[in-house]
């Protein structure tokens, strides 16, 4: 995940080699990768997936394939089909992006 999203190499538990920033502490990983790590390691927590960009979408789906995770999402993330996502607001299970956008609009209109 760290290599794919941040293009950075984990050198040790305390050092990340970033092509842009040089050697950095794990705290300076992108917000998206940090959110993904929490999703994966702490599946009982509801993580704010708005911290993740579109380049994290495939990793959210991958984590979801391995274990059930619940996330909060405030924008129309570009999930690649096929997927199985349960929208907690409506209880609907969706499998394609058009349905995801419809669900997203419903939530935006009725829940603000």
């Amino acid at each position, binding site marked *: 995940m760290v290599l794919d*999203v*941040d*293009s*950075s190499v984990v050198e040790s538990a305390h050092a990340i080699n970033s092509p*842009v*920033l*040089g050697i950095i502490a794990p705290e300076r990983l*992108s*917000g*998206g*990768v940090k959110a993904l790590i929490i999703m994966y390691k702490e599946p009982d927590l509801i993580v704010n997936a*708005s*911290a*993740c*960009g*579109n*380049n*994290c979408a495939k990793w959210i789906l991958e984590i979801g394939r391995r274990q059930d995770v619940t996330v909060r999402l*405030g*924008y129309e993330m570009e999930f690649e089909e096929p997927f199985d996502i349960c929208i907690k607001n409506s209880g609907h299970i969706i499998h394609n992006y058009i349905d995801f956008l419809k669900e997203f609009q419903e939530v*935006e209109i009725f829940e*603000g």
Partner: protein
Amino acid sequence: MKGSVRIVVSTKRLRYELNLRRNITIIQGDSASGKITLVQIIDDYLSGRTGPGTEVICNKKCVVLSGEEETAILRLRLLKTAVVFVDEQERFLYSKAFAEAVLDSDCYFVFVTRDGLNMLPYSINEIYYLRNSGYYQNTRQVYNSMH
């Protein structure tokens, strides 16, 4: 606010160029495209935590608002025609009280967020997508002009 404002932020490794045309500008982008880094560099520069080689060039005062909502709003009310940066991690960005303070202000605002800010009126033409292209961090409009 009147007219557009150009901001250049540069370090030895990075360079950002922003052109603010309206009072509210939204910056979005993929994870690790450098959005938070931009705000951090400006914050570090303004706090004197950067060494030589880091520059923030702008003809307006630049400010990064962070921390508690009450403090942030108080700081904002004291600012005149400044450029105010707020990162998505700041919870007050989504509050009604902060939105009201923004509407009363004559500052320029740069909000780094993917979520919609429903209480603020901003143009879809001023939503920019930060793109990482090596040394330069460029912005491009998310929505094309409708006319």
